[in-house]
């Protein structure tokens, strides 16, 4: 079992490393990731949302729906813990 796990892990690792060969260099300013969408955020965020922290602007405005989902995720986790563990509700007076 353990050897099987090891083999799976190694195969996955090799596939992943195979994928990295064609990637743009680490920290390359001309990589597609920093050319396509992100300049739009950097140049517009302050002007359109009056928020100097671009990460906050993107998090809470451009992609605010993701953040709603994120909050829902954490809320789900809280309710999940209550559902799984809590045995009895507190007696109300």
């Amino acid at each position, binding site marked *: 079992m353990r050897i099987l796990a090891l083999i799976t892990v190694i195969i996955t690792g090799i596939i992943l490393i195979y994928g990295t060969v064609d990637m743009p260099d680490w920290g390359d300013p001309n990589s597609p990731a920093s050319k396509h969408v992100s300049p739009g955020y950097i140049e517009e965020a302050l002007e359109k949302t*009056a928020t100097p922290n671009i990460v*906050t602007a993107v998090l809470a405005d451009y992609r605010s729906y993701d953040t709603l989902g994120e909050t829902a995720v954490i809320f789900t986790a809280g309710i999940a813990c209550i559902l799984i563990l809590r045995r009895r509700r507190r007696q109300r007076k």
Partner: protein
Amino acid sequence: MISITDDIIIRTVSRVLIPFIQVYALYVIMHGHHSPGGGFQGGVILGASFILYLITHGLEEAKERMSELKAGLLSTFGILLYSGIGLLCLIMGRNYLDYGGLSTLLKVIPAQARSLGILGIEIGVGIAVMGVMFSVFFDISTGGILPEDEEDLGVNR
């Protein structure tokens, strides 16, 4: 069941530190615009301050300050605040979560309205995260069984 520590040093130092941690957490929530941080981080720190109180002062005392029911209510309130702001934008005739729609309501320019909308949802996220963090820690550390129910349920854990 978390008991109070009988060590006076830990209790006192945590007592002194907790208000500072809370102010710091609120600072992190409110200043997400200008420095790193935001609702989630501030909420976690705020939750951590209550967790610290729970660990050092025991369940009995901590319940007077923050009970699990209150935490649940707060988390629900926070996330309702978030989605409520979204719905408000919807009612104002824009798309969901388009804070530009708030500008007529708040009487500011759209960019400023967006900034205020961001602040609003950060507060919502902070409250929700604080409640959930406390509630999760509460459940995991007590096993979900409140001390007053222990005899009734007849469980050892």
